């Protein structure tokens, strides 16, 4: 429905250049082979577990998504209505591929799936999210996570 090139020109340009902080270096972490890795999903889709407060605007905080969350418990509260939601409505794995990660873990392609996953609001200026992202990193480390799949919308 909406690739970047489908959107009105002004909106496409704004998205392409959206709040990109300038990083002088790019960090680089290596790790064991995938069959030994513990994988988490960190999404910027504004995902929220039903009953938890939805994202209301360009919030800089995050929501916790326990790995035991069922598909019928996960909602999307991203503030942009200009991306497709029908894929997520039909199949949550389009945005939050927990079933696929479980299958990969069962097949031995990855080591395991994290106990907890996280979601931010992707329209927020990333600089404002920095402290919370570092907070999430601490939680991920405590969970033994050594690989994160970053999922936008």
């Amino acid at each position, binding site marked *: 429905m*909406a690739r970047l090139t489908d959107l009105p020109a002004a909106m496409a340009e704004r998205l392409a250049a959206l709040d990109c902080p300038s990083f002088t270096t790019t960090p680089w972490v290596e790790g064991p082979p*995938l069959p030994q890795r513990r994988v988490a999903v960190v999404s910027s889709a504004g995902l929220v577990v*039903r009953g938890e407060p939805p994202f209301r605007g360009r919030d800089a905080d995050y929501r916790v998504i326990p790995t035991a969350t069922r598909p019928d418990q996960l909602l999307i509260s991203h503030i942009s209505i*200009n991306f*497709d939601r029908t894929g997520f409505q039909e199949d949550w794995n*389009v945005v939050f591929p927990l079933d696929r990660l479980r299958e990969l873990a069962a097949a031995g392609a990855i080591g395991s799936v994290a106990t907890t996953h996280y979601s931010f609001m*992707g329209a927020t200026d990333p600089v404002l999210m920095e402290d919370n992202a*570092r907070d999430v990193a601490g939680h991920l480390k405590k969970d033994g996570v050594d690989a994160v799949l970053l999922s936008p919308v």
Partner: protein
Amino acid sequence: MSALGHYLEEKGIATVAISLIRPQTENTRPPRALWVPFELGRPFGSPSDADFQRRVIVAALGMLERSTRPVTIEDFAEDDPRERSDPAWRPPLAADAARSLEDEIAALKGVYRRSVAVRGRSTVGLSGLPIAEAGRYIVAWLHGANPESPVAGMSAPLALRFAADDLKAYYLEAALAGAGRPSSRQQADWLWQTTAAGAALVALRRAHIASPDERLKLIAGNFLVPALRVPPGG
């Protein structure tokens, strides 16, 4: 998204980002990213296609095993087959210009429930309102009533935004009830071109886009009708 990769990796956790907007990723220069040629909103591609999704994930996670130094952006080669229209798909409700929004919501109830039963889930629920009540709330706004928020802790404009989100989800999920496998465009064409709900949201946007209430103006302009579905002249 790519900035989060920087922050997490700086704390010692390896990351790989899915990229839907390549220029953003090129600007932010995350450690690793897999650009996918999918529509916005579908980072793992094709719904109800586990093999396709798995190929995306394996391609992305595979980048973690390569020692190519930053910055690495790779391209996923496959298109999402579900972007193609399905000629077998039929809308859940025939167009009827005389039908009210409330009647339309009621008419879709059975098919929506069937859809939820098949998929085992619904994404309706941000407002916390039953869908008929969400519809009545939207109609009250449409009639110029500026109703109070029916949701504790939510301003009236915010309740309107989430009621509109729920209304759209209710319709688009109902569109998944049949045997066909519609593209997102087919579903959206049906919602925005033929339903009372689409017409109501467009009318509501038009009515409040110049509101002196800045919050209402913001909601009307940004949260009711997708940019691609705003008619010429608003």
